[in-house]
């Protein structure tokens, strides 16, 4: 069925892609002018690998989108940013926001044929809390536990209704439950499946697992998917999708151009020259995410050296955002003036640290006076990714100029993800998206302040699909 897309029919592919995404989200596609055709398979090249599908295995950026073909979330974020029930049919909160009553949608089935009911919801929530891990029934939830720490208990009220009681009032409990699209609806059989939890995703999504490897995810149409389109046609339209992890930008570009790939995903950080080239190509439709992304450096203030304010200041002053934008992004975006974009209510240029080599050196000297050591830190990047290395080297150049020693730490994507969440790195690059949690954010390198000028090719990010960070290399 790949023939559908051959020979200048890229547009179809793009539309199909939108249709695909539409099937994932209640948000209707805005520009699906053509009526989607049913059938066909897609080859999608992504820039993240699949470390696993259990609670602790965090799918990053593009892999998350792939994962969301299999999984859905209990609640979903609408185009206007509001969180609405999704696999749930309704959510009610108590007046004090300390107890939330959730009812599961009728007639939804997991891929293994088991129904989605109150028990399944309880198992999911308990697994996220780590309660099942304590009992030895399920693998560790990793950092997810921290997000559900406010939960006192989870009680099944009726077959399909579950009540969650909280310690403290929490207005944004649904946002937590959504967690940028990461808190999937997993089948109890997967959660309780022990070692297989990581490799056998069983969800409720429009597609179900065919096979998965570190570098590949193959999914096929779920014939029993619960949603229909506006015309009453059962979703999804596609028969199947293959997501392939291609770390090299060149592989994705040549894949698109040689028609080995129907869709490829790119990131605005460091892949701009390829994106610009593809924009000129008539056979490729470039879809940019309406979200704003901020390539940034995350300084870990829990461990040395960035537990020192002087160290953080030194790095912040040392980064030449204008130069970085020119060298790495061809001036495609604009240097950050605030830690968030202008559309954000938190936008504030005041107090935002700008490039100042002199102050950087002063801060580095102050750090030395404070600790007796030269300022030195390690910076992970994706081993084998040319762009990631180039980004890191560019940052290193600014650090060196300010007398700060930055060691390059080549690691695999999987390893970076695994270690990022327990915050084991001193510093790391991450791509932040507008509207996601800012608790971890330190100074930005650059942000796109032009608004809506993002540079993700053929990529319609599910609204709010990103949780708080995208910690893969310097994307």
């Amino acid at each position, binding site marked *: 069925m790949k023939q559908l897309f051959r020979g200048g029919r890229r547009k179809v592919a793009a539309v199909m892609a939108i249709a695909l995404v539409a099937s994932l989200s209640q948000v209707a596609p805005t520009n699906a002018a053509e009526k989607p055709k049913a059938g066909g398979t897609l*080859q999608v*090249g992504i820039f993240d690998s699949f*470390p*696993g*599908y*259990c*609670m*602790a*295995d965090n799918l990053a950026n593009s892999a998350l989108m792939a994962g969301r073909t299999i999984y859905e979330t209990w609640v979903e974020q609408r185009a206007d940013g509001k969180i609405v029930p999704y696999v749930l049919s309704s959510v009610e909160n108590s007046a004090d926001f300390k107890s939330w009553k959730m009812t599961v949608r009728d007639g939804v089935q997991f891929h293994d044929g088991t129904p989605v009911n109150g028990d399944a919801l309880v198992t999911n929530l308990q697994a996220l809390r780590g309660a099942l891990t304590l009992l030895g029934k399920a*693998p*560790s939830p*990793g950092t997810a536990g921290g997000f559900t720490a406010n939960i006192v208990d989870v009680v099944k009220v009726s077959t399909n209704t579950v009540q969650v009681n909280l310690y403290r009032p929490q207005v944004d409990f649904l946002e937590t439950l959504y967690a940028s699209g990461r808190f999937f609806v997993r089948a109890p059989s997967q959660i309780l499946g*022990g*070692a*297989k*939890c*990581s*490799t056998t995703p069983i969800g409720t999504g429009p597609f179900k697992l065919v*096979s998965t*490897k*570190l*570098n*590949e995810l193959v999914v096929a149409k779920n014939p029993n998917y619960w949603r229909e389109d506006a015309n009453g046609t059962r979703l999804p339209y596609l028969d199947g999708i*293959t997501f*392939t992890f*291609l770390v090299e930008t060149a*592989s994705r*570009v*040549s*894949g698109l*151009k*040689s*028609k*080995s*790939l129907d869709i490829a995903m790119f990131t605005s950080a460091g892949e701009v020259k390829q994106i610009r080239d593809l924009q000129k190509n008539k056979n490729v439709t470039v879809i940019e995410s309406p979200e704003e992304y901020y390539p940034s450096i995350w300084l870990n203030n829990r461990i040395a050296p960035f537990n020192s304010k002087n160290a953080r200041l030194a790095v912040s002053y040392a980064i030449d955002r204008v130069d970085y934008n020119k060298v790495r992004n061809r001036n495609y975006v604009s240097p950050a003036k605030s830690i968030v974009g202008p559309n954000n209510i938190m936008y504030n240029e005041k107090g935002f640290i700008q490039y100042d080599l002199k102050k950087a050196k002063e801060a580095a000297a102050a750090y030395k006076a404070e600790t007796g050591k030269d300022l030195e830190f390690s910076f992970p990047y994706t*081993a*084998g990714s040319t762009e990631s290395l180039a980004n890191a080297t560019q940052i290193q150049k600014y650090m060196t100029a300010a007398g700060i020693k930055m060691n390059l730490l080549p690691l*695999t994507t*999987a*390893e970076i993800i*695994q*270690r990022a*969440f*327990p915050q*084991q790195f001193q510093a790391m690059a991450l791509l932040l998206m507008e509207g996601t949690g800012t608790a971890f954010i330190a100074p930005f390198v650059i942000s796109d302040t032009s608004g809506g000028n993002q540079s993700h090719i053929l990529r319609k990010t599910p609204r709010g699909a990103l949780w708080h960070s995208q910690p893969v290399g310097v994307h």
Partner: protein
Amino acid sequence: MRGSFWVQRFAQLLITVFCVTFGCSLLVQLLPVSPAEILLPVGSPEERELLTKEIGLDRGPIGYYLKWLGEFVQGDFGDIYYSGGTESVSSRLAVAFPRSIWLMIYTQVLSLAVAIPLGVWSAYRVGKRADKAISNTLFTLSSIPNFAIALILVLILGVRLQWLPTLDYQPYSAGIWEHFKHMIMPVVSLSVGLIAAYTRLLRADMIAALREDYILMAASKGLTDRRILWRHAFRPSSVTLFTSAALNMGALIGGAIVIETIFATYGVGFEVFAAISGRQYIALQSIVGLISIFYVVFNLIVDILAGYVDPRTRDRRVNA
């Protein structure tokens, strides 16, 4: 005697595989940190202890190896560890092996199919213009790394001309043409160097063979040059060629790492790379063990075949 020869070769196989895998298992001991820590960077101490027990790291180097060996012999190649679970190496290899085997077979077939006529022809025309042209061309081509050839092929055939897909592997079930289309560029990139190597080997042996009296004898019978070349000179000259081809099989199955990465063929070579970069030492040990088995077995097969190609070696073998 013949029987003892086979016993000897089998023992050699076992020893090689044993040494290779034991060497691999020692690598784990060389690590400056506990493998459990590497395999489970976010795991709790309890989980790590469990893992240490599970893979036998608590039993000392020998115990660890013996445990692995016992499982390996039974076809359990161990697991790949994720923070939330495991995946069996055999299930990964079940996908990767056919890809690598096809890649290896096509590469060998293409290389030999091109190298044999070229080698025979340039030996026949030794010192003449054709021979020099062939030798120089191959010499130059063989000096370009195979990944460079791969990148150039991708640029020209994949991106500019759009004749061939640049990525991915397709099984036979996806259609023979689909299958081959995805194989052409990786196979060609791997073959160029081999063609040069094989042609050189064959040419040298053929030149030596063509100086032999039995070639003159064949000529004095009134046979055509073509018949002399193929029936009389080629067979006795081909033993080195086929031996070297066999030695390459193991390397092609596990060593085509860069090519498999460039074309996203994701065969055994990529699994090796993934195991190494993901610090999956148990998986690495098993895969490398399997590759060395392939290597030794192919050697053995070539020894058998050499007996048919050149019956003199059968005698030598008995004396050996």
